[in-house]
């Protein structure tokens, strides 16, 4: 059973928080996007799923034996918010915000209101340094504290993207141990992608993407991130442009789950590939 009270509370807070924001930025012109013939996307190997472990033994050992989540199917959103010095720039912040930082605050709250989940946590790097501001938690007081914290952040300092993402990732992995490996685990990174030296997250992104048993979904809400950046690689992450209010509001597609019908004439490998 999902804790509905938390979702409603969070939505109310987010609505209030976003009321002052002008978010109806123009839709990107689809016609202007160059047509690129993409190869079929790679397939995740289901064959190795049974032999692949996640979370790691190290994470399992860190979680106490008695820590068991009340809801094994809880949806978890771990936010990693970039409030580094580069987020002071106005470039890529859209017409309605004075800086990427202000646009990022709007974007993350917009995304979260569309995908509230059950538990929310927050990692930030800002003038206050890099820290786990809030571990995963729920309840209206927790949500209010997160929103207030986001609103109060000021951009400054370096971009220890990898460190911050690792913090958030570890929180999710521990929660997966508590929930027995069921539920949803989203690491939502709001950034312009300009990592400090030694903090390029590509190895972590690769590690998550290459393990089919790793249930962490990587979501990037990006500003001016180049197409080759690991956090914009759609073979590895869900990418949403921070300046696309419609995309931010859209919410995640529902999972398809199992098909309700069996079509005998459409079940061979070859037929399915057509």
């Amino acid at each position, binding site marked *: 059973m999902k804790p509905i009270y938390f979702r409603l509370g969070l939505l109310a807070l987010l609505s209030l928080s976003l009321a002052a924001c002008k978010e109806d930025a123009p839709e990107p012109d689809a016609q202007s996007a160059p047509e690129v013939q993409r190869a079929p996307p790679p397939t995740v190997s289901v064959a190795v799923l049974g032999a692949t472990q996640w979370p790691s033994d190290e994470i399992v050992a860190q979680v106490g034996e008695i820590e068991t989540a009340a809801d094994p199917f809880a949806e978890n959103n771990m936010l990693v918010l970039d409030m580094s010095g580069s987020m002071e720039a106005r470039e890529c912040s859209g017409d309605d915000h004075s800086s990427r930082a202000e646009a990022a605050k709007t974007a993350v709250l917009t995304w979260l209101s569309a995908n509230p989940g059950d538990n929310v946590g927050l990692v930030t790097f800002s003038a206050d340094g890099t820290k786990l501001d809030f571990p995963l938690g729920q309840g209206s007081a927790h949500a209010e504290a997160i929103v207030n914290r986001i609103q109060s952040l000021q951009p400054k300092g370096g971009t220890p993207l990898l460190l911050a993402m690792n913090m958030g990732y570890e929180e999710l992995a521990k929660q997966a141990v508590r929930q027995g490996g069921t539920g949803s685990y989203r690491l939502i990174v709001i950034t312009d992608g300009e990592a400090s030296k030694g903090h390029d997250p590509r190895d972590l992104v690769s590690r998550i993407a290459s393990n089919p048993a790793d249930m962490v979904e990587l979501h990037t809400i990006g500003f001016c991130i180049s197409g080759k950046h690991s956090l914009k690689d759609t073979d590895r992450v869900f990418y949403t442009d921070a300046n696309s209010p419609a995309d931010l509001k859209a919410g995640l597609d529902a999972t398809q789950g199992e098909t309700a019908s*069996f079509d005998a004439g459409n079940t061979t490998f070859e037929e399915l590939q057509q």
Partner: protein
Amino acid sequence: MRPFSTARVMAVTSALLASLSPAVAEDYPVRDCRDPGVVLPMVPSGFDAIATHATDDLMGPSIFQRNAKTEGGDGFEIEVRTYPSFEAQLADYLACETPFMRVTHAQMSHISDLTEPNPATAMVPIFFYGWSNGADAVISRGHTKVSELSGAQIVTDAARLDLALQLGQDVDTFPSITVSEDPAGSFASNSALDFAIVSAPQAEILTAGGVGTGAEGSVDGAREVLTTTSANRVIGHMLVVRKDFYDANPEITRATVRALLKAEEIFREDAKKQVVDFERASEMVLGDAALEDQMMTLWRGVETVGLAGLVDWGDPASARSFRTLINAGQTAMVAAGLRDAAVALNDPEIDFASLGDDIWDKRRTQTSGFDQDAATAAIQAMSNEDIDDSTIASVTILFEPQQAVFPVSQYQDAFEEALEKSRIYAGAVLSIEAHSSYLGYLRGVLKSGWEPPKQKRELASLRNISTARALSVRDALLETAEQIGYTIDKSQITIDGRGIEDPLGGFCNDLPCPPKTEEEWKASRRVIFRVIGMESEAEVFTPLNEW
């Protein structure tokens, strides 16, 4: 000297007694047995460490000396006597060298033609020592799983007959059961015998601790397929007394049971304090003080039940009571052709609950016996083949697409049968393994071109669906248990939501091969409830007799 009666049990020619050597079976002298001498028989079993400890008077009066007194305050002496074979014990019982006899339930039925026709020698069950829990093993040559016992040949001695009968009921075709005084020897010398039930130490020798090579006493190709660690509510050891002695000495009999209970209670405490002399026990029980380690192994392979367990055993309404076990055993013996018809046997007559005045240990031994996390990890680490080999019983439930609920009533009978199995194989893990259909996933990946992040998201979702199904089956199982009055050990249940990682048709290019038929598509949404023997995974169990 006890007087001889004129009665003699004459030759019994049925196949039932083929296990007893003709010289003894043909002619047992029977004596009157009303004198109140108490000689407790001891056999090579872990339970007998208790009796030897109770006779230890090195530091003062022994436990038996202190506790062998009637409720009226009259003291009496309890002696012990070791019997290397059942044959010798039976002869002494009939001759009243001792009025008591150590038997298991099916064994009691098996020998009843020798004891029950004479009202004086009829057996009265008076004490339940407890269960074999690892002390006995089923071994096989050329077979790896219990299901292959179907229609095969198995040899056992009478003391382990309960296990052969139980396994016979759990396979498709009842096996041919041979009762032998020396099943290990019979198995080794007769290659037509596919399976044998032997003591754990014998199994260790015959299988060379793994798969026998034919050297050093092992049998080529012999391996262990099951032990009473899983089937730990099958072989129950008890003490019976002759009816003439019981009628003549009700107070002495009652006081003997009380002394045994007290001895067990004190033994457990002393074992915890590590002041039990296992060297002395091995000398008295196994005939060699050097076999101390083996004696300790035997002790670890049994499970005493305490006063509460004794009360349950004496209550015919209890699931694993004396009466339930006798009736089930005799039904199976008739099915196996070991008896033509059931035989009437006495029920326990002592009011066990009234014995507990000075017994402080009134525990019921239904404590959690598993490390659930270790059991889950062990099952997840097992290959499908290993799981198949270790499966004792299974029930498959099919779900509708996207559904985590199912018509419980449709599976009520199967659940009740599975619960019954879980009580008999109380040392087995109850694994609930759930799967999801992969057809929609294949369509998404191959036809709709899902990106990898979307693929992983769907994999997680399908795993969630399967886990929800496993939990639904667990809840239904527990509900059914409650409805029929079963107490189930929740630590015995493991949950494994496997999503689509184990497709029925295997893999094609790293993806599940599409289902070929609608039936295969339906079967992909399966939940399999299994009773799995986990003998080889020691970390799964919390130790019984280590405290």
